[in-house]
């Protein structure tokens, strides 16, 4: 687990929920390795925000992208080399604000990637503005009289747009979080994990610990999952939905791999001549 850590100085606030995610990730990788997934094949992308600092701390290859665009980077990696296992880290503002379209389209396409959405319900790094998941009434520097918007429900949103693995977990439940991460990465298709994680300057651990509860069982149908996502409160943890649907890259080119099975220069030249000269 220690060799999954870089030498970078960790600059999350002491007690930040991100530490839980960092720990769970480092627990999950050896478990995946035990299941035959090669660490070399795991590639990460991150957006911008407190969530994304995990990129510097995890000793894994990847691309630290722009705010909101990390899932597009992840899609491009998977499309070019489908042998890779891609994990994309996102914040609630990053993935459901600036990057909403990309998140939705990655799910719509059922890209075979995993998105871990660090939900601290606030723009923490930029000093506490409301996010797409912040409760109505939040008094931040951009909404001094209280946010007037109703938050998204990330779980029902992902159900609606086509994600095929949808779970909510909590940075304070390391075992559950680790288990969900392992399952999500093993899942073939777009797997979405919402992780509740207190940003301590804005929310206390107790606010979460008092409210979290687990789903009794995995809803059996899409309709049941949607009902559960909408009716249960937002501290409900568990796997909400899991199904199988064709993944994007296989629809695009079957079992081809554009990178490892790329055509040689000679073959390309021959084929171009065929097009031009018959």
């Amino acid at each position, binding site marked *: 687990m220690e060799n999954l850590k*870089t*030498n*970078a100085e960790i600059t999350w606030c002491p007690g930040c929920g991100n530490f839980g995610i960092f720990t769970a990730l480092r627990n999950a990788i050896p478990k995946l390795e035990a299941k035959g997934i*090669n660490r*070399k*094949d795991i*590639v990460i*992308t991150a957006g*911008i925000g407190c969530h994304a*600092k995990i*990129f*510097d701390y995890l*000793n*894994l*290859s*990847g*691309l*630290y*992208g*722009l705010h909101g*665009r990390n899932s*597009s*980077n*992840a*899609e*491009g*990696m*998977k*499309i*070019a*080399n489908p*042998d*890779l296992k891609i994990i994309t880290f996102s914040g609630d503002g990053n993935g459901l604000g600036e990057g909403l*379209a*990309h998140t939705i*389209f990655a799910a719509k396409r059922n890209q075979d990637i995993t998105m871990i959405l660090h939900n601290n319900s606030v723009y923490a790094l930029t000093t506490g503005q409301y996010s797409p998941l912040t409760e109505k009434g939040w008094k931040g520097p951009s909404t001094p009289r209280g946010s007037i918007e109703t938050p998204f429900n990330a779980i029902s949103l992902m159900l609606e747009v086509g994600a095929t693995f949808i779970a909510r977990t909590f940075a304070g439940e390391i075992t559950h979080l680790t288990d969900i991460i392992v399952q999500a990465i093993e899942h073939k298709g777009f797997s979405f994990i919402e992780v509740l994680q207190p940003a301590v300057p804005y929310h206390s651990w107790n606010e979460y610990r008092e409210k979290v509860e687990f789903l009794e069982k995995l809803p059996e149908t899409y309709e049941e999952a949607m009902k559960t996502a909408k009716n249960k409160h937002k501290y409900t943890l568990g796997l909400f939905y899991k199904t199988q649907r064709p993944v994007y*890259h296989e629809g*695009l*080119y079957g079992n*081809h791999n*554009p*990178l490892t*099975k*790329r*055509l040689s*220069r000679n073959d*390309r*030249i021959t*084929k*171009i*001549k065929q*097009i*031009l*000269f018959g």
Partner: protein
Amino acid sequence: MVHDVFTFLVGGKAGEGVKKAGSVAAHIFSSMGRQVFQMDDYMSLIRGGHNFSVVSTSSRWITSQYMKADLVVNFDKRSCDTHINDVAAGGIVIFNSDEQENADGIGIPLSSEAEKFPMKKLMYGVGAVAILSSTIGMSKDQMNQNIKNQYPSGIEDNIKFADTIYDMVKDGCQNKCPLERGVKNRPIITGNEAISLGAIAGGLDTYYGYPMTPASSILHFLAKQAENFGLAVVHAESELAVINMAIGSAFTGARSMVGTSGGGFALMTEGISLAGITETPILCVLSMRPGPATGVPTYTEQADLNFALSAGHGDFLRIVASPGTVEEVYYLTAELLDLVWKFQTPGILLTEKHLSESSMTIDLNIDDAKWAEPKMHNGGKYKRYLDTDDGISPMLFPPSKEIIKWNSYEHDEIGITTENADMIAKMHNKRNKKLNALIEHLKTQNTVNIIRGEHPTNIFTYGSTYMSVLEALKHGGLNPTIVQPIYLSPLPVWELEKFKNQDNIVIEQSVTGQFASLLKEKGGVNIRSVIKRYDGRPFDPIELSIKIKEELE
């Protein structure tokens, strides 16, 4: 005929087969061993409006359409009115007598004849091909063979219709402009097809696009060829996604390209900047149409030059180059793909609707395309941003035991985020060193096309305007020197030095004269005057030759 050029113009509403008739004409000429330049002029709509296709052919290399046609076929009154001044002296005009009774030219009942067939108006284009066939002295058998090859659905009806029209125009058209046959059958392709083929030859693996005229046909062509060449070709949800997906692909080692026009490129600039700091090799085709904003979608301009030169926030190396001809763009696309991989930075292939969507006969040496190869890490501890003499850090792609980190934040050599003052300056210096390395490399390459003339004045031009200038000079029998920089960033000042203080004029398609400003500011080139056109239309060689002549006298 204008000297040695024959021009065919066909006009009508969108949906009547105007474009197809132009393209069939182009293929007829090229199958006769002649050279061709075809330009389609169309509006941003699906049905109706006015479209026309103009096809000029010669037994020598021809680089422009001529807006004085020897044969004009009008499907409707609007076309007749629009093209009243586009007829060459002694040219033949055909009008649709079902739409108008009295017009100059030969009236044929195109509508009522087409109504006899189930395809109706869709057959107008076949009628135009029949009129052309008669005019250039082609036999009915030859014509029918062409129609069979070019219009594979409804062959019998098409031939019946063509035969009727062919006979109808016998008196006015038959063999009025017999065309000499050439010696070599050349393929005829559009600029966008040449871009696509050049990219494939250069090693393209993934292409991302969002539909936007005039770049869309790159996406269409590559999507169609994806399976044949083993490419991944994706139409994404926005240009933001397009550029970021391409950067993700490049991270894995895939040679990636994107294509768009000004508005889409505006969205991509955030990603261009990301490619700058992450040192991502990425090639972006920017095919210009008149702006600002939505502008005029289906027409041509050269007003995004400044935008391309400074695209993306921050200091980083941008390679910008613009091809002069359909042949040149094949080689240049492969060359740019190679350069962006060699220097790990974004490159922009700057072109225009006029080159993207016009068709030309080509003489290509397919094998001469460059092949994109990066400098690779050869073992040992890996540092993504290793500081080297030329600023180029060796590359490594997953899967690897070594950790490969690309970072949009300023970073250290490993790729970990930094805010350290020394490291920030060191990384700026590292990336900046690549400019010198690139310039040294480009000094060994052809970066400027120079055609020496006898007249003491030099004409500076770039992009597809080069083709207009070439044809105008040929038409006008003028011989100044032409200087066409292919590379615009870095500007090859080492090549321009000798012209600096001579008598120079600039020809470009921008109201503010962006190219002239670049030459003055970056190259110190003395410029006497600028000939501009900015009405969305490419220069006509006849009109342009008159303007050049005035400047040369």
